[in-house]
Every structure is written in C-alpha cells, then in structure tokens.
C-alpha cells in the first residue's frame, strides 16, 4: 500500500486543485465533474475497500482544505461513499463496462447524501437545488468515470506486474 500512497498524494492534490481552480470555468450543464470522488471510488473497485478508503481519506482532506464547510466533512463522506461502493461492487456480477458508470453515479450520490445528513447537525443550512442537480451530476459522473476507470485500471495492472516481477527476482 505504501507504493500506491506515493501515487495517491500528488494525484489527489492535483485533482483537488483542478476541481477548485479549473473545472468551475468549464462547467457542463451547470455542474462540474467530481474527479476526486471518482478516483477514490474507482480505486476502491480495483483494489478493495481498504485501499479505496485510504485514497478517499487523502482526497477528502485535500478537498476540505479548499472548502468553506467543516474540515473533515469531505473526507468522512468520501470514505463512507467509497467503502459502500466497493462493498456493493463486491456483491454484484463482475462487469468492466456498465458497472463503473453505475457505481460512479452511486458513489457520488452517497458522497452527497452523507453530507446531507451531517451538515444540519453542524448548524449548516442546505438548499434543495443540489437535489435537482443530482440526476445531471450522476449522468456526468457516469460518463466521466469511463476514462478515469481505464487510466486507473492500466495503472493498477502495471503496479501488480511490477510487484510480481519484484517477487520473482
């Protein structure tokens, strides 16, 4: 896991910066892709809930650094969403084509749902506008997850091959 941590730290930081400084200028249908969420969800699908949760924690902390909301909220919501998605994937028939899109949308919905539960407890008000945006966001996430999945799938394969070669030596 140490090796993937070295990848997760700069990758999640880069994605959080992009999400904060770049994507808002290129919103699609009024929403922006949540790449940090998708990356954590995909890594959980590929490497299991434990590694996915670690990546989600790192990504969530970077999101929290840029957010006006309570610190730790993104991290907590993303960890729970990633674990839940990985467990759901565990119970479903394997598919490399449809499943990532479905789980990407599900993971995003869970990420927002956890925050919907937690935020009022911290005294924050929530607008219902995001509920109207959720179907659009879910569709966008379901589409954007495809390239994210294939990039991370290739990375995962390379890491596993490297590990096998190292063991062989």
């Amino acid at each position, binding site marked *: 896991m140490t090796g993937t941590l070295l990848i997760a730290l700069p990758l999640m*930081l880069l994605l*959080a*910066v*992009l*999400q*904060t*400084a*770049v994507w*808002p*200028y*290129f919103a699609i249908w*009024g929403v*922006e892709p*949540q790449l940090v969420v998708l990356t954590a969800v995909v890594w959980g699908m*590929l490497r*299991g*809930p*434990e590694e996915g*949760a670690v990546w989600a*924690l790192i990504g*969530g*902390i*970077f*999101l*929290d*650094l*840029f*957010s*006006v*909301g*309570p*610190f*730790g*909220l*993104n*991290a*907590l919501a993303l*960890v729970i969403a990633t*674990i839940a998605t990985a*467990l759901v*994937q*565990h119970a479903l028939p*394997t598919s*490399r084509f449809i*499943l990532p899109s479905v789980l990407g949308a599900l993971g995003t919905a869970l990420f927002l749902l956890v*925050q*919907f539960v*937690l*935020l009022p407890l*911290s005294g*924050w*008000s*929530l*607008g*219902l*506008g*995001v509920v*109207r*945006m959720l179907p659009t*966001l879910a569709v966008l996430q379901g589409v954007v997850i495809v390239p994210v999945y294939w990039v991370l799938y290739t990375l995962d394969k390379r890491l596993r091959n490297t590990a096998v070669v190292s063991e062989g030596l």
Partner: protein
Amino acid sequence: MLNKPDGIRWVALAVIIAIAFGLYVLDSTGNLDTLLRFLRDPVATLSDVASDPAQSVSSALDAPRNLAEATARIAELEAQVAELERANQGYRELEGEYEILANLFDYARETPLTSRVLADVIGRDPNPLFQGLIINKGFADGVRIGMPVDSERGLVGQVFRVNERSALVLLITDASSSIPARLSESRSPGLVHGGGLGNPMSMDWIPLEAEVTVGDTVLTSGLIGEFVAGAMVSRFPSGLIIGRVANVRRSDADILQTAEVQSAVDFGKLEKVFVITGFPQTDLGGLENPLDEPGP
C-alpha cells in the same frame, strides 16, 4: 474482470472512518484552526497558479467566435452605450441634487471612508453543497473573519475562514448565508437568505404592509451585529447593493411576505473582489451586551 477483495479488514476500515470523523469533530470544536491556517496557504498558492490560465481560456472561449458575431456584438454594445449615456444624463442631474442635500446635512465631512482590500479570486469551493470562493488575501493583509466582500456589481459574501495569505469567502448565495437587508424604495427591513446551488436568494421577514415591487433594489441595512469589546457593531455597512426584487410572494394568510432577489453579480465568473476592512458603523446605540451587565 474487476478484482474482488478476498477478505475485508473491517478494523482497518473502522480506523480510517474514525480518523475522518475525528478531523470533523476537531474542526467543529475549533481545535484545528491554527494548523489549518498554515496548511491552507500552500494549497491556495497552487490554486492561484492554476486559476490564471483557466480564467484566460474560459474568457477566450466566451469571446465572440467569428466576424459576424463580433459585428452584431459591437452594434449591440453601441446601442447600450447610447442608452447608458441617456441614463447618465439623468444620473448627473440626480448627482447635483445629491450634492446639495449632502452639503445641507454636512454628510460628506462626517462619513468616514470605507476601507477596502482588492483580492483576486483564485478558486472555488470544490464541494457542490457549498457556495464559496478562495481569495489571495489573508490575515497578513488585514483580512479578518466576518468581513464583507463585495464587487463593482454588488455584495459577494462574507469572509468565513482566514489563513495567513488567503481566505475562504462564503457567498451570499450559499444556503447558510443570511444578511440583514432593506428595500431601497419602502425602506422595509428583511433578511436575505441564500438559496444554495441553483436556487434564487430570497428576502424574508418583510412586513405584510410594506409595498414591494419587482425591480426594487435590495440593500444591506447595516442592522444586526455582534458584540465586540462590549459594543454592538454591525456585520455589514449600510447601503451595499445585494440585488433586485425579481418576484414577490405574499399571502393574506401570512403576516409577512417574501421576495425573490436576483443579484447582478456573476458569481461563476468573478475574478476580483473587494474585502471591506473598515466601514462607518450604523448607530446601534442602546444595545448593550447583557453578558457585560454586573450581577445583583
């Protein structure tokens, strides 16, 4: 085929959830403030570096893409200039009247200047549930929590978290934002609440007898504040433009009415804002902190 985990280490998952929950609790109790003030600056610098090219590309994409479109745009702008010149003439007359009134009340001499700090917008809240901005001015530049943030088109929000060289601003459109306001025509008071993502702002608690019409300007009232060093100080200066009334909802069954408020600020394209670091206080005299009163 997707890889399926052989055995799930529930203890490891519980530890990770506990770490995230711990951070959430520590921040809610204010125990992370000092640490975060220094951690946020380096990442804000990265955001600053990344936002400049993104803004340039976005502006280029928004620009007219062909000659016909540009010509039409020039004609449209020329018509706007002519209309503005006519309006400007009216304003000049009003300005003359205002000067007379200001001299009469000796207003200009008595009103201290509002001090502002110009800041660049270097990022936006990555979480769709929050409406926030990151600016490149912080504690070292005199920015403090609670200071109002405005732009040439109207009120933008309020400083919510301050780091050494950057700050996070909660926009007036966030569902958690509430600002004491008044209508420019009837001077009726109310409270402007943000609607959150995709929802309009609303001015609530307007008395039913108040005359509210579509197009009325909504301004900050300067009322409602907080106790600082035993004195009541207002959070916002009086008279900042929040927006215009776009719709009015009233029912005879209610004792209050609500107006939908539309801001002239394009929050998605903001590049520069002003942090108001000092302003003339609205007279909230007579209000004393009950906690300061000596006991019997």
